[in-house]
C-alpha cells in the first residue's frame, strides 16, 4: 500500500513520472527570494519550514514541482517556495490544479488552501477533486477563522463563535474536514498539527507517496484572530486526553500510559472511547488505514468533539488505492490511438460525405 520514503528509497508510484533532481537538494533550495509576510508568530511559518525541509527528501527536480493556492493567508504559500507556483483566486485552486495535473503527469502538484478557501467558497471544487482522485496533494491549513479578512468565523469555527460578523455568536454547525473528505470518496485523508514538525513531516511523506488526491488537514494557529484554538492538542498535559495518534496496524490507544482506547460498540457499530482494562484490551480497535470501507475511518473522525477538540484523531485516517484520474485520462488517449490510429487532421476535416466541385 502506501510506501514510506526515506533517503535512497525507491520512488513511490505517485511520483514515478516526475524527473529526479540531478544533485542532492537542501531546504535552502526550496526557499524563494521573497520576504515572508505572515504575521509574526503565525502557524504558517512552521508549516512552511516543514514543507521546505521535507521537499529535498522527495529528490524531485524542483522545476517539476508546482504549488497552487487560492486566496487567504495560507494561499501566499507558493510565493515562498522556489518552485513553480500560482496564487490563484478564492476557492478555485483544486480546479486549476486539476487541469495542470491532468495535463502534465510529469509534475508534482500541491494545493495550499485554508478552511475558508477550501470549505466555503471552494467547497465544490474540493469534494470533486477528492472523488476524481486527481494526483494532487492538498494541504488544508485549518485555523477555524478568517484571517485575511480580519477575523470572521469560518466553516470550521465552533458554534457560538463570537467574531466581528457574529457579535451574538455564530449559528452554523462546523464542518469536520476529515469527515467531509471521507464522505467525498477521498482515497487519502490525514490530519496533523502545525507545531509538531515530526508528525507533520511524516504525514507529508505518506501524502506525497500516495497515488491520487491526498487531503492533509493541518491544524494551524492564527495568533491574531483565533489564538490558542488548538492549545488543547499542543499542551503536553491536555494533549494526552485530547489527541488520538493513529498508526496503521497499531491498537488505537491514548491518554497517560495508553490508559484509554477505542472500541467498537457492539450494539450500534459505532466507535467509543473506553478505559483500557485487562478484560477489554483485546477488543481495542487496531487502526487499519487501508481498509477498503471508509466506515471505520469516518467513525474515527467523528470521535472528535467540535467544541473541546477532545478525542481528536491525528495521523493518516485513510489511505487506499483507487484508480488515478490523470492516469486514466492518459490511458484513454492511448486507447483511442490504438483503436482509431493517430488522429489525421485531413481525414477528420473531410468527414464521410463530401462532394467535389471542379473549377
Amino acid at each position, binding site marked *: 500500500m502506501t510506501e514510506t520514503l526515506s533517503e535512497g528509497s525507491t520512488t513511490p508510484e505517485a511520483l514515478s513520472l516526475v524527473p529526479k533532481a540531478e544533485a542532492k537538494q537542501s531546504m535552502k533550495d526550496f526557499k524563494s527570494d521573497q520576504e515572508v509576510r505572515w504575521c509574526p508568530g503565525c502557524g504558517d511559518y512552521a508549516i512552511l519550514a516543514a514543507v521546505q525541509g521535507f521537499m529535498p527528501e522527495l529528490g524531485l527536480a524542483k522545476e517539476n514541482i508546482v504549488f497552487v493556492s487560492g486566496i487567504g493567508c495560507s494561499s501566499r504559500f507558493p*510565493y515562498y517556495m522556489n518552485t513553480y507556483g500560482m496564487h490563484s483566486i478564492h476557492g478555485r485552486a483544486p480546479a486549476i490544479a486539476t487541469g495542470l495535473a491532468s495535463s502534465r503527469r510529469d509534475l508534482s502538484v500541491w494545493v495550499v488552501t485554508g478552511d475558508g478557501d477550501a470549505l466555503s467558497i471552494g467547497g465544490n471544487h474540493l469534494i470533486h477533486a477528492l472523488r476524481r482522485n486527481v494526483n494532487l496533494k492538498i494541504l488544508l491549513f485549518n485555523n477555524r477563522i478568517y484571517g485575511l479578512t480580519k477575523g470572521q468565523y469560518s466553516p470550521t469555527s465552533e458554534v457560538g463563535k463570537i467574531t466581528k460578523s457574529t457579535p451574538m455568536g455564530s449559528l452554523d454547525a462546523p464542518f469536520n474536514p476529515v469527515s467531509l473528505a471521507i464522505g467525498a470518496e477521498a482515497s487519502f485523508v490525514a490530519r496533523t498539527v502545525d507545531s509538531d514538525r515530526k508528525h507533520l513531516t511524516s504525514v507529508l511523506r505518506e501524502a506525497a507517496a500516495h497515488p491520487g488526491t491526498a487531503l492533509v488537514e493541518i491544524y494551524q494557529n492564527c495568533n491574531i484572530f483565533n489564538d490558542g484554538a488548538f492549545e488543547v492538542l499542543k499542551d503536553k498535559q491536555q494533549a494526552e486526553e485530547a489527541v488520538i495518534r493513529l498508526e496503521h496496524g497499531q491498537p488505537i490507544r491514548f491518554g497517560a500510559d495508553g490508559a484509554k482506547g477505542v472500541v467498537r460498540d457492539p450494539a450500534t457499530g459505532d466507535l467509543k472511547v473506553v478505559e483500557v482494562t485487562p478484560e477489554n484490551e483485546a477488543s481495542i480497535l487496531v487502526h487499519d488505514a487501508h481498509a477498503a470501507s471508509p466506515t471505520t475511518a469516518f467513525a474515527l473522525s467523528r470521535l472528535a468533539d467540535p467544541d473541546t477538540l477532545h478525542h481528536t484523531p491525528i495521523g493518516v485516517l485513510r489511505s487506499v488505492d483507487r484508480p488515478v484520474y490523470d492516469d486514466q485520462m492518459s490511458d484513454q488517449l492511448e486507447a483511442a490511438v490504438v483503436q482509431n490510429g493517430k488522429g489525421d487532421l485531413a481525414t477528420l476535416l473531410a468527414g464521410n460525405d463530401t462532394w467535389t466541385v471542379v473549377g
Partner: protein
Amino acid sequence: MTSQVSSPAEQAEPAEQQSESQNLTGQRKPGGPGDKEVRRLDRVIIRFAGDSGDGMQLTGDRFTSETATFGNDLSTLPNFPAEIRAPAGTLPGVSSFQLHFADHDILTPGDAPNVLVAMNPAALKANLADVPRGSEIIINTDEFTKRPMAKVGYETSPLEDGSLEAYNVHPVPLTTLTIEALKEFGLSRKEAERSKNMFALGLLSWMYHRPTEGTESFLRKKFAKKPQIAEANVAAYRAGWNFGETTEDFAVSYEVGPATAAFPAGTYRNISGNLALAYGLIAASRQADLPLYLGSYPITPASDILHELSRHKNFGVRTFQAEDEIAGIGAALGAAFGGSLAVTTTSGPGVALKSETIGLAVSLELPLLVVDIQRGGPSTGLPTKTEQADLLQAMYGRNGEAPVPIVAPKTPADCFDAALDAARIALTYRTPVFLLSDGYLANGSEPWRVPDIGELPDLRVRFAHGPNHELADGTEVFWPYKRDPETLARPWAVPGTPGLEHRIGGIEKQDGTGNISYDPANHDFMVRTRQAKVDGIAVPDLTVDDPTGEADTLVLGWGSTYGPITAAVRRVRGEGRAVAQAHLRHLNPFPANLGEVLKRYDKVVVPEMNLGQLATLLRARFLIETRSYTQVSGMPFKAEQLADVFKEAIND
C-alpha cells in the same frame, strides 16, 4: 398545383430575380419519374414541423445531407424547444427545421417556407403565419382529430373549414400509410408510427429528386443493433418516395440543380457551426503543436463542442467535464499554465460564472480560449434560441480594467477559421480571447470547402527556455513579466523548465519581476500596459463592399447576422440602390481603419440581435450616431426585414 415560386418579396438573391420567368414557366420534362411533370426551380425553402418527439431535427438533418451530397448550396435553421420532451401536441412542444437550398450561392435559411410539412395541428398552428399564401402545405391528416385540434384551439378542422384555402394543401394520412407500409415487420403500432418522419422524408425526397442512398445507409448504420427497426425505417422512407410517385395529388416534382457556379473548385462537405468550431480547435492544436485541453460544463447550445472534442482523443485532445462552469475554466487555465492550448466552452450564463477566472487569466497573461455560444438572456433566458447580447459582457464583464480580445465568426463554416484566429491571438499575445458564436451559427449548417492542411496558419509558439534579463551585477535571471517589445506579450515559461521557476498570481505584479507589488505607479503602468497589449493586437483592416462606390449608407454588422445582412444588401442592390456593407470579425480591438470607414458614410446602419451593443461601443469610441436596428426574438433577422430597413435609411 401551383409552382413553388417565391414572391418577389422573398427573393434574397439577384439570381432569382433574373430567373423569375424561368421559374414561372418551369421546365417541363416528360419522362421523369412516373412520367409526371418535372419543374426546374432555382431555390426552395422547406420547413419540417412536428412534435418534439416526432424526429423533425433528424428528418431535417437527413434532407440536408441529401441536399449537400447533391451539390446545392444550402443553409439551415433548426428551431426547437428547450424541453427534451415538451408536452405532446402543444404549441410550446413544436420543433421545426427549415432548409433553404438552391442552384446558386445563398446566405440564409430563407425568410418564409415554400413548403411546410406539418405533422400535427400544433405544428400547423405554430408555423402557418410564416408560410406565404400560395405555398404548399403537406399535412398529416391522421393527427387532425378532435383532441389534438382542441389542444391548440382549433374549434373546427382547418382541413375542412376553408381557412387553408389560400394554400396548396396536400392532406396525407402519414401515420396510417406508415403503419400500413410496415405491416410485415411485426412491429407494435407505436413502434411503426415512429417511422412516419421517414415516410415524410421519403415523400419530400421524391418531390425534390434527392439522392436516397445516403439516408438508407445512414439508417442502417444508426440502427445497426436493431436491424428490424433499420429496415422498417428504410421501408417507410421508400414508401414515402413511392407514394409521391404514384399518387395523383402529387402531380409535379421539382429539380433544383447543383450550385456548381456558386462554389470555387474543391472538396466540399456540409458542416454546422459547432462542428466547425470543434474542428478549428483541433486544427489550432495541431498547427500550434500543443496538446488541446478543454475544461467545460455542459450548457446549451455549447455542449456539442464538448461532445465532439471528447470523440477525438486520438488527436491528444483532453476533455474535462468539470463540476461547474468555474472549474471548467479553472482546469483550462491550469492546463494553459502547463503549456496546453486551453479552451473552455460555454454560453452566456456560464460566462457570468467564469468572469473572475477570465480576470485571473488577464492578470496571469496566459493563452486561453473562452468560447461563448450565445443564447437568449438574461439569466436562463432562451437556451435553444439565438441572440448576440453577450458582446458587452465579453467586453466589460469583469472587475477592474480587464481587456479581452473578441473574435466573432460570421457563418457556420467560418467558425473553423475564427477558432484558428482566436488561437493565434491567444498564443501570440498570451491572453484570454473570447470567441463569440451563437445558437444560430452553432446549429445551422452550410457547405464548407474542406481546407487543404497546408493552407492552415502556422501557430507554433516558443516557450521560454532560459534567463531573459541581466541584473545590474551581471546575474542572469528570468523575469516572468518582461515583455516582448513588439507584442507586449510576456514569456510563457512552463513548469518543467529548469531555472525558470517563478510564481504568478492575481495580485498586482511588479513590471518585469512579477513579484507582488502594491506600488501605485506600478499598478497604473501595469493596467495601461495590459490595455496597450490588447489594443495593439494585429487585426486586418475592415474591408468595405461598395461595388458602385456611390453609396452614402453603410451597413455594419458583426457575427452571425452576416447571412441575413448580405442577402438584404443584395436585394437592395438588385433594386438598383447603392449600399455599402462591412462586417466585423474583431470586436476588440476594432480594425484600425474602422473610424475612418465609419466617417466615410453619411448613414451607418447597425443591425444586431441585442439592444444595440455594438452601436453603443461605436458611439463611445468614435462619437458617431449609428442607426441601430435591433431584434431580440430569439430568431435570426429575415432578409426582407433588413432590406426594408436599409432602403429606409438610404431614402432618408
